């Protein structure tokens, strides 16, 4: 993945220089507020039900809109007859292809490909055909059902395997097989395999996953003259602003996008939706605010997915476990409208373990399915699934402990970046060792298997995330008011990670202002500064240094004012509570509210910019996860009994929130490993069968183990930013599934390589390979 893809940003590359760099502050030592497990500052709003999510916005005269989706996997829209729908009660406006405001390009791609808001050529079940705005949501859907569409149903191909065959229905001109780029190579894999003592090969498959955040996708749009306000459930208000401005051809200054609260994204809400444009056009047409939110079925169909992948991985190693060669071939589809079927799957294969000879090939395919969207650590859970199972496979073959095998192949430098820069920190080895200790790894591995059809075992897996080091752009503003209270203003969204809270903690740390006296403005293009979308585990590493810089700038201005008043050098001053005090003579002090220059100005504004990480540095988060499972060898059920996550994400800004987030990533990984699977009717109509939250199975309270432990491994990295904090949202979900798979192997001797490991898959694997009978040596 290129740098610009990392930021899910379709504009120009983020800047790598920032204006007016100030001298770098000292790294934090002992902190008073940062790192502490404080309660979230918006906890009240969320648990009281008073937090207003975009889907809660109710405006006077608001209309409710609903989209008509194409029910066929592949079809041409011949005719759209809205005459009956127009006459129905409460219907105020209907838009279809050709109507004013709908000629908006969408899904531009290689070879000049472009689709439109309403494309008569529907390339997957879910492609939008029309939209209705009515007085009530019931009336809108009644009208949608009354629209008569004549489709010419065309042959479909939703299966990757079928799509690759010559003669398969063409999803696009130019065929379904996207010309692959150059394979990644270093060294000479063929020579490497020849020099290996053992060469193993596995073919693994991973499921297509649907993000399905709890809040549906959608927005409310309202015009005031030429100015448009959009409340949208999004991870990036600025991305929505840019996209809608372009689509409607209006200046950025005239669009305000508000995204204060949002009910989850996981990568599915990094860019505007067609609903953002449609709601705006309908609002303009009717002169009334329009609320357009998708149904859950539509979210399952069209709002993104993690592509399913087939990964063939070949590994060569020496007897002592040193890796010599790794070769991967990845195949996957991003649906009809995205080339991203294999993005970043090979990252961990190329980078995580020291290996001199590597070759990675990727083959992406078009199919008549919903478009891929980045999904929490795009590519990485898939790559880790194959790589970490392979490491376990090697360990078993070589008779080496899986932890020891990984420790033998630690790399301190990035192997794929130009110049092989050294990681500013890698806690990977520590995560392995300390995690193993805390988990009781050695003891659990050595336990004799019980003479029972319930077999227990433990497994481990490692991972790293290609992002998480942070970078420009980010502009944070901190204001100190005359009474010593403060305001933090930043463009970043809080998508559940507690952004507002740790941001406030940083301000509190630098300025000594209590948390309850700090207000936050964020995620609002009308009142904050540009930020790239909150995703990619970039928010903490990108925003936290900018916020710290802004707070320090406020402090410096405050000290300058106090210095003049106290007739002392600014360098002699420090903040103690609400007073500025001389470090050398505690009797010389002044209360913030008594600083005359401050009183005259009324406010102190500090602006902080995120500076680039030092040139030639590699900053990445690492993690290792451990699972204990119980496998019922009669029924194929896998129960995860306990779990431990050990992570190096640098300085942790709030351990309580971070632990929650990591456990959340683990839960998502359990979905990947055990329950989630998008199923399409490949052989017949190509429609989505897991089109609701019952058939698409996300983990419930009974699927997530209660016994979860979090171990923070902080390498005290002062090398890359003034906070030393790396991202963690994505690392948390990368090693989970393979840790479980490896535990299943330890428990049963079954080497499962297809996720999710449903009871069906376990039973199939058992039927194909008899597990070690009760009492005998288990898989080692």
């Amino acid at each position, binding site marked *: 993945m290129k740098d610009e893809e990392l930021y899910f940003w379709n504009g120009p590359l983020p800047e790598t220089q920032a204006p007016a760099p100030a001298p770098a502050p000292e790294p934090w030592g002992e902190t008073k507020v940062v790192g502490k497990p404080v309660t979230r500052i918006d906890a009240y709003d969320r648990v009281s039900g008073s937090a207003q999510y975009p889907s809660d916005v109710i405006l006077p005269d608001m209309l409710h809109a609903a989209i008509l989706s194409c029910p066929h996997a592949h079809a041409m829209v011949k005719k759209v007859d809205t005459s009956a729908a127009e006459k129905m009660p409460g219907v105020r406006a209907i838009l279809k292809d050709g109507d004013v405001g709908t000629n908006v390009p969408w899904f531009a791609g290689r070879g000049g490909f472009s689709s439109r808001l309403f494309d008569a050529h529907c390339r997957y079940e879910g492609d939008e055909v029309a939209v209705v705005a009515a007085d009530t949501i019931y009336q809108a859907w009644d009208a949608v059902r009354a629209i008569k569409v004549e489709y010419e149903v065309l042959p479909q191909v939703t299966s990757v395997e079928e799509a690759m065959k010559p003669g398969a229905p063409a999803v696009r001109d130019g065929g379904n097989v996207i010309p692959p780029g150059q394979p990644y190579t270093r060294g000479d894999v063929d020579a490497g395999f020849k020099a290996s003592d053992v060469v193993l090969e596995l073919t693994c498959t991973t499921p297509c996953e649907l993000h399905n955040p709890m809040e549906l996708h959608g927005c409310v749009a309202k015009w005031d003259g030429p100015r448009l306000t959009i409340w949208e459930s999004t991870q990036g208000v600025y991305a929505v602003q840019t996209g809608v401005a372009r689509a409607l051809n209006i200046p950025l200054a005239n669009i305000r996008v508000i995204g204060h609260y949002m009910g989850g994204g996981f990568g599915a809400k990094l860019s505007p939706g067609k609903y953002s444009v449609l709601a705006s056009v309908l609002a303009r047409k009717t002169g009334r605010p329009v609320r357009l939110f998708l149904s859950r079925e539509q979210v399952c169909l069209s709002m993104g997915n993690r592509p399913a992948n087939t990964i063939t991985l070949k590994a060569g190693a020496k007897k002592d476990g040193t890796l010599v060669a790794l070769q991967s071939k990845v195949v996957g589809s991003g649906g009809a409208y995205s080339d991203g079927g294999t993005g970043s799957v090979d990252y961990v294969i190329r980078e995580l373990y020291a290996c001199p000879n590597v070759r990675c090939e990727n083959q992406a395919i078009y199919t008549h399915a919903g478009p891929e969207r980045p999904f929490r650590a795009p590519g990485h859970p898939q790559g880790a699934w194959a790589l970490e199972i392979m490491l376990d496979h090697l360990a078993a073959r070589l008779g080496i402990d899986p932890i020891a095998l990984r420790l033998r192949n630690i790399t301190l430098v990035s192997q794929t970046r130009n110049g092989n820069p050294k990681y500013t920190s890698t806690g990977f080895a520590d995560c392995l060792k300390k995690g193993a200790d805390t988990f009781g790894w050695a003891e659990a591995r050595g336990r004799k298997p019980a003479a029972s059809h319930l077999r227990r075992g433990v497994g481990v897996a490692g991972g790293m995330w290609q992002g998480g080091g942070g970078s420009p752009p980010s502009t944070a503003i901190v204001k100190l008011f005359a009474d010593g209270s403060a305001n933090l203003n930043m463009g970043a969204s809080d998508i559940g990670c507690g952004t507002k809270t740790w941001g406030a903690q940083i301000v509190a740390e630098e300025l000594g202002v209590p948390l309850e006296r700090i207000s936050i403005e964020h995620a609002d293009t009308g009142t904050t500064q540009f930020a790239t979308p909150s995703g990619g585990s970039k928010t903490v590493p990108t925003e936290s240094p900018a916020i710290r810089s802004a707070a320090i700038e406020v402090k410096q201005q405050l000290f300058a004012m106090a210095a003049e008043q106290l007739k002392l050098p600014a360098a002699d001053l420090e903040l103690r509570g609400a007073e500025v005090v001389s470090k050398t003579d505690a009797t010389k002090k002044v209360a913030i509210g008594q600083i005359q220059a401050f009183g005259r100005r009324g406010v102190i504004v500090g602006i902080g910019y995120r500076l680039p990480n030092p040139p030639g540095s590699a900053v990445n988060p690492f993690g290792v996860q451990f699972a204990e499972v119980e496998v019922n060898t009669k029924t194929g059920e896998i129960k995860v009994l306990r779990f431990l996550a050990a992570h190096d994400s640098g300085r942790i800004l709030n351990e309580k929130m971070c632990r929650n*987030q990591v456990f959340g990533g683990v839960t998502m990984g359990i979905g990947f490993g055990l329950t989630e699977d998008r199923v399409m009717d490949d052989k017949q109509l190509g429609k989505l069968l897991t089109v609701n939250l019952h058939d698409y199975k996300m983990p419930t309270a009974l699927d997530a183990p209660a016994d979860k432990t979090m171990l923070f491994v902080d390498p005290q990295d002062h090398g890359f930013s003034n906070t030393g904090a790396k991202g963690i949202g994505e690392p948390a979900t990368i090693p989970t599934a393979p840790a479980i798979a490896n535990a299943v192997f330890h428990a049963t001797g079954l080497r499962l390589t297809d996720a999710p490991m449903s009871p069906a898959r376990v039973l199939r694997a058992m039927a194909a390979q008899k597990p070690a009978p009760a009492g005998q040596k288990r898989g080692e």
Partner: protein
Amino acid sequence: MDHEDKDKPAAATGGVSRRGFITSVGSGAIGVAAAGALVKGAPAEAQTETVKAGEVSTITLTVNGRRQKLLVEARWSLLYVLRDHLGLTGTKVGCERGECGACTVLIDGQARYACMTLAVEADGHEITTVEGLMTGEELGPTQKAFAEEDAFQCGYCTPGQVMAAEGLLRATPSPTLDQIRQGMAGNICRCGTYAHIFKAVSKAADLKRQGR
């Protein structure tokens, strides 16, 4: 085009002053509901009259302790009426099919999905929403526990989780971990906050026992 009269939304209870001005739109039209609230002790009328498709009929819901008389279509879900007619947007829309739990409310003290309940079927019953757990601006004990244990991330499933916990604790005041997990098994959290939710329910049980 036809334009049907809509029932005006009534004022929400609890926490109103914390919410943005724009969501209290329509709350001035307290008229219908408040007047209806004075109709004491009127149970659901025996009705063997068929309500025709598309017609509205009168129902009485006691929502968070206030009796509301409402005109509703038979097909309207309780979730729709609570949010779009009563302005109580604390209860969330997740799937409209009883598969996620985001719309969990209490009906006569029992956890139920408001999306799977026709408003007409809730006629004559007591509905408690997350707003109803507040005392004025103060959080109730279950809500306090969720806040203290950081039992939410994006917060969207949270009102539903809180109500499911409330329903569980009213029936089982001192649940074991297993009972907690079973009781919360009808609420999806995509952010995966379950571990903290289990702690929160346990703490809520303590707070309730202490009378907090």
